[in-house]
């Protein structure tokens, strides 16, 4: 009985000491996971996930604080990639998935208040005080952050139209079903 206790205690002390030493000796800081997660996020910086930008959300996912299905611009595709990276289960998106959009300023209504310019996270709006503003379309990420601040509601979100340059070949099965 005594010997059992002694041996188990000895074992515990030896292993504990070894682990304790190792945890000091081999201490590593930093989290490479955040960068990997951030690379998957769409960088719209829209804050729809509840975090101020994509990087904080990535950090929150890495820390296990946030779920992986909070990013509507990333869509189900993004959720799937995150699940794949983190080995978590794929979950349906929290919010509704929308087609890719960009903001359009109705230039007739714009009063040049610069509020949207301040809201835009990627500097995709040009204009000056009391001057008409406009959106640089290729830079717009469709984050919708400029819509609310506008006092005259002249900003609307419009889905990106399909044109010859962004047209994609479709998944063939549908056509086959039609043919059959």
């Amino acid at each position, binding site marked *: 009985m005594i*010997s*059992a206790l002694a*041996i*188990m205690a000895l*074992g*515990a002390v030896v*292993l504990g000491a*070894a*682990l304790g030493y*190792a*945890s000091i*000796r*081999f*201490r*590593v800081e930093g989290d*490479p996971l955040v960068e990997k997660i951030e690379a998957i996020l769409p960088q719209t910086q829209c804050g729809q996930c509840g975090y101020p930008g994509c990087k904080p959300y990535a950090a929150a996912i890495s820390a296990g604080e946030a779920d992986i299905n909070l990013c509507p611009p990333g869509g189900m595709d993004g959720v799937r990639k995150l699940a794949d990276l983190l*080995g978590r289960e794929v979950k349906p998106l929290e919010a509704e998935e929308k087609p890719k959009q960009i903001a359009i300023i109705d230039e007739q209504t714009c009063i040049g208040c610069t509020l949207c310019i301040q809201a835009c996270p990627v500097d995709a709006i040009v204009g000056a005080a009391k001057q008409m503003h406009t959106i640089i379309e290729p830079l717009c990420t469709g984050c919708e952050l400029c819509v609310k601040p506008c006092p005259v509601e002249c900003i609307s979100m419009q889905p990106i139209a399909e044109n010859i340059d962004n047209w994609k070949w479709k998944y063939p099965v549908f056509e086959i079903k039609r043919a059959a």
Partner: protein
Amino acid sequence: MTHYIFLLVGAVLVNNVVLVKILGLCPFMGVSRKLETAFGMGAATTFVLTVATGASYIIDRYLLLPFGLEYLRTLSFIVTIAAIVQLTEMVIQKTSPLLHQVLGIYLPLITTNCAVLGVPLLNIANRHDFVESLLFGAGSAIGFSFVLVLFAGIRERVEGADVPPHFRGAAIAMVTAGLMSLAFMGFAGLDRYQ
């Protein structure tokens, strides 16, 4: 010599720890979704299992047996394995970040791999000596890695198959594991050939 080879090959194929002994199923099902991770898990398990069998043998032979503490075997083995896994992880993380990226997240999982506990216990049940224990441990680990990698290969392929919705994911993986086990039954009797 032939005895050792038979022991090793027997541990890899005939008495495969996963498909014949049905041990270590959790990592087998859990870490086989992708080939790379399966490779990582296999390598990590091979290392830990081999070290653990050696350590367990020493503990059992020189610590537990002399004091008549056989009844503490399971407990002390579990603690030893957990400590080895932890140490290994810390060392790898510090010394080789690259390897840690490959193996890192799988190492803690090994603590809960029943094969790592099962193989040392089998060693004792089969009265293996130190070399035999190590060989049996290594063989089991190689067998584990081998089928894990094969399984991952098949799962990657089945991922693209038109599996009925109710069988997607874990269900079809279970079926596949069962069929693999069936295939491995073909080796039955090979280690008893004289």
